[in-house]
């Protein structure tokens, strides 16, 4: 590896850009597809959950931190790791708390009360 000149390496990543663009474009379609039919009651948990998923920027922050040299880069890298950790840890925790409350209800499962007779619900406790 050390035999490569910096210029050569950049060339390698130059061939990679198309691959990354391909992945990027396919991911757009996947992202659209997976949330195409979400009931409105799940909009909030979904927003919160996807918020947690982009916390994976932590992986990038760690790589940056590992390579940081000099005070400025180290301080900024440290901050990046800290902020990304807040995003990923906080995001997953708060989403789980939200969903836990939905789960706790026995009637929560798929049979939305649509199929039920509405008279049966209210009066009898």
């Amino acid at each position, binding site marked *: 590896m050390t035999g490569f000149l910096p210029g050569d390496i950049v060339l390698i990543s130059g061939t990679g850009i198309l691959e990354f663009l391909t992945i990027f474009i396919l991911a757009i379609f996947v*992202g659209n597809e997976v*949330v195409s039919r*979400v009931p409105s009651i799940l909009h909030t948990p979904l927003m919160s959950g996807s918020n947690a*998923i*982009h916390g994976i920027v932590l992986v990038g922050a760690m790589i940056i931190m590992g390579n940081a040299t000099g005070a400025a880069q180290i301080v900024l*890298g440290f901050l990046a790791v800290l902020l990304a950790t807040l995003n990923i840890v906080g995001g997953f925790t708060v989403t789980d708390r939200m969903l836990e409350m*939905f789960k706790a209800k026995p009637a929560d499962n798929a049979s939305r009360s649509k199929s039920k007779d509405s008279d049966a619900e209210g009066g009898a406790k």
Partner: protein
Amino acid sequence: MSHASATLVLTRGTSAPVWIDLVYLAAAVAFIVALKGLSSPKQARNGNLLAAAAAVVAVAVTFVNPAAHFSSHTTNLVLAIVAMVLGAVIAVPVARTVKMTAMPQLVAIFNGVGGGAAALISIVVFLSDAHLHSLGAAKPAVYAISEGLLGLLIGCVSFSGSAIAFAKLQELMTGRPITYPGQQVINALVGVAIVALAVATLLTDSVPLMIATAVLSLVLGIIFVLPIGGADVPVLISLLNSFTGLAVAASGFTLNNNLLIIAGTLVGASGILLTRMMSKAMGRSLANVLFSAFGSVVTAGGGADGTGETRQVKTGTPEDIGVLLAYARKVVIIPGYGLAVAQAQHTARELADLLMERGVEVFYAIHPVAGRMPGHMNVLLAEANVPYDELKEMDEANPEMSTADVALVVGANDTVNPAAKNTPGSPIYGMPIINADEAANVIFLKRSMRPGFAGIDNELLFDEKTTLLFGDAKDTLAKLVTAVGEA
């Protein structure tokens, strides 16, 4: 230093060992499955747990990823661990204890810091590239610098925009739209200036210019959010969430990391779709939400059929209303933003339980955008242990409204405004509403006569079958509990 330069260039040009890339790929697949799971009520919690597990694994292998060079940079390793522990120690208790009503602002913060992290990654990469370039290394390709600048720009907008959204929801600043003359023009000029600065940065590799781009992007985030009213902020947070996803994807391009590209793009794409679904649930287009400064403009031009302030409304005492409720056969509770602000969900449940004990049929009619975020009201009522089958979504509730004796509207306004059905010129015309006007009696628990966030008068308030009870939703509900108990 020449050694460092070689390793860093290698980092950005080469990928990690195959097995590490495979782990990242598996994590990316898990994120896709998780997102799919989060879209269905049955699988949602498992989906979230799956994503969390995948994230833990991906972070763990990054410690041994040669691209991070932790084995040779032990100081950096220690600092990274310190930052992560610190982050977790702060985030977990906050996320565990925050009140469910304050959750939207918490999501805003977690989103903002993610955008900030992506922006910082771009800055550090830029600094290190500039440093290496000054040592004689080749300048990175134009697209590589562009990716970094894109991540910087979007990340900064998301960071400062989320901060303002937080301040609005936390009521650190007014939730009303903040407008000034020429606002759109100024915003557009700032946008143009950012593009110009970014291009100049690209051409010159200048660190000061890069910093200026970052600062101006932060400014753009702020001025972009200022004119958006409190009721629309949730839609905005969803949009900023999508922005952060795109910023993370840009970081993925910069670092040649598939996981970041896939995860970031997933969130970016699904976030924009989700944002549009949210706007649609409010009967408006996304452009309308973002650029119309709804509240202020409409208040000025609203009141198509006369001003509301001079007209008479009927107010009642808690005792009168308590009797009405206690002897009703069917009561529909329509909760809104006011209930959320007053943290009145527990008291509402108390009242509902009391009525049900008396044999009154009670259910909650939930408008899709009730509360501070779509679906937020369901979360709040679930927190107050309201059984799921007492909650009816709008489409389910509306056919039953005409047989209800009382529609009890708690802190809602626009979501029951008949103008959405009857007044073609109204800004909310076409928005689906809960048909409270079809019930035999309508009770409004309101803080004041102030119009809802849409800033439009509600004809239903002046209807002769309507009775108003002013006050904080929690207080008035508590009074009703007492009154029903004595009835």
